[in-house]
């Protein structure tokens, strides 16, 4: 066990960079026209969790460690495509799109990053770190009553990641972390568009626990590696690195 982590903290003296084992990649559904999953030699590492679950902090540290260990990385996340990110932001601000439209807009954003960033990086043998992936999009849609089969069909284009971390944090902790960071709760993360309550705090609590229930359901199908996000940053990071190491050495994480 201990041996595997020797490359965790590069020493000042020459440390050997470990060449990751190849893993078989596949798509959830039809995939994309003309893409051969066997050519995707990099790894796809996904971190899921609500705002305030510690996603970004963990990703920053994971990138530091990976790059220090000699692996090239690329980061993606929701709403970061060249194609529609600005328009999506505008649409969210105005809040006049139907949920289905917004859902397709997000799917466009995802597909653009998948084809133009994720897949090329993986072909080039990079480690792709995704700050949220299709699961958040699916969960949000499902919370809004959109048919799961419809969403599943759309995301048949998505690549199955090498590992998906789900940072599980209680709604109470999320509230605290969001308020101490932004001094307020976000409209969308509180699910205010759902009309669960006119009180944003109450809406946040209800919405986040709904999302957690949906994630537990998705967990069965998509096999997330659920991490207890209530622990310290360092503890969570340690567990993530252990699991990523196992991905790099070619054995599947638990």
């Amino acid at each position, binding site marked *: 066990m201990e041996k595997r982590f020797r490359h965790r903290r590069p020493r000042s003296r020459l440390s050997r960079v470990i060449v990751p084992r190849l893993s078989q990649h596949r798509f959830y559904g039809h995939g994309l*026209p003309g893409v051969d999953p066997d050519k995707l030699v990099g790894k796809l590492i996904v971190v899921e969790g609500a705002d305030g679950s510690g996603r970004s902090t963990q990703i920053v540290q994971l990138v530091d460690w990976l790059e220090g260990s000699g692996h090239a990385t690329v980061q993606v996340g929701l709403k970061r495509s060249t194609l529609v990110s600005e*328009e999506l932001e505008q649409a969210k601000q105005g809040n006049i799109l139907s949920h289905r*439209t917004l859902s397709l807009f997000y799917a*466009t954003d995802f597909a653009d990053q998948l084809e133009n960033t994720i897949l090329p990086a993986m072909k080039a043998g990079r480690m792709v770190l995704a700050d949220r992936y299709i699961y958040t999009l699916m969960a949000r849609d499902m919370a809004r009553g959109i048919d799961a089969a419809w969403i599943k069909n759309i995301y048949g284009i998505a690549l199955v990641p090498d590992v998906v971390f789900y940072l599980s944090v209680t709604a109470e902790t999320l509230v605290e972390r969001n308020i101490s960071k932004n001094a307020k709760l976000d409209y969308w993360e509180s699910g205010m568009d759902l009309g669960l309550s006119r009180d944003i705090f109450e809406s946040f609590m209800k919405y986040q626990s709904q999302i957690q229930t949906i994630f537990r359901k998705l967990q069965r199908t998509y096999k997330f590696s659920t991490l207890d996000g209530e622990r310290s940053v360092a503890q969570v990071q340690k567990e993530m690195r252990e699991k990523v190491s196992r991905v790099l050495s070619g054995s599947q994480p638990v």
Partner: protein
Amino acid sequence: MDKTFAELGYPGRLIAVEGLDGSGKSTQIYLLKRWMEWQGLKVFFSEWNSSDLVKSATSKGKKRELLTPTTFSLIHATDFADRYERQLVPLLRAGYVVLCDRYIFTAFARDTVRGCPMEWVRGIYNFAALPDLVFFFKADLHVSLNRILEGRPMLKYFEAGMDLGLSADPYESFRIFQGRILEQYLSMSTEFDFLVVNANEPIEAQQNTVRELIANKLELSRYVTHTVTPSARKAPSTKTWKKDSDIEDHEAA
């Protein structure tokens, strides 16, 4: 969805026209709209790829040639969903006759020619009800090609199907691309009960066919507006109508 708006109990009716660029379908739907307005019917015209919110992203993607078959498909679906839920459905609930210049079949044909799996594309659009009537304007391939190629020699990248790498020559690429789309349309014709109109005939003859079919299939008196004003009768609005709409529509390709 495999039900029409009538089957779903909507008071309104949706009539769609489909066909290749240059088949003359936009002219026919325009004349249809004028005829209905003249009779004082509640009629509304809606065009493919015209939702304001999505337009900016679509045109950016097209200008910079950023679109892949998948994003091309998804961005048009986004546009359609927006128009469907905020425009078409409310109008159909309000008892309008909605005339659609292109409907989901355009996506079925184009996206599959671009290489997207048919089940995937159909799955995306399965929230939409089927039109109550679909007219397919079937012109000989060379007739529609000539109409477009004579009128406007500058072909845009996506409309010529250049993204498919069929040919380095835009005209040749356009010919092959349109030919494949025609095949797709023909293969859907029976499944979706297309009312096939011979688009090689004179404009007036086609319009007769269309009007007769509609008069037989719809009880038009049910859609008479209660709020008709004398000015609306005299001069139907031409504001949203562009004369060269075949070319406009063609840009949307």
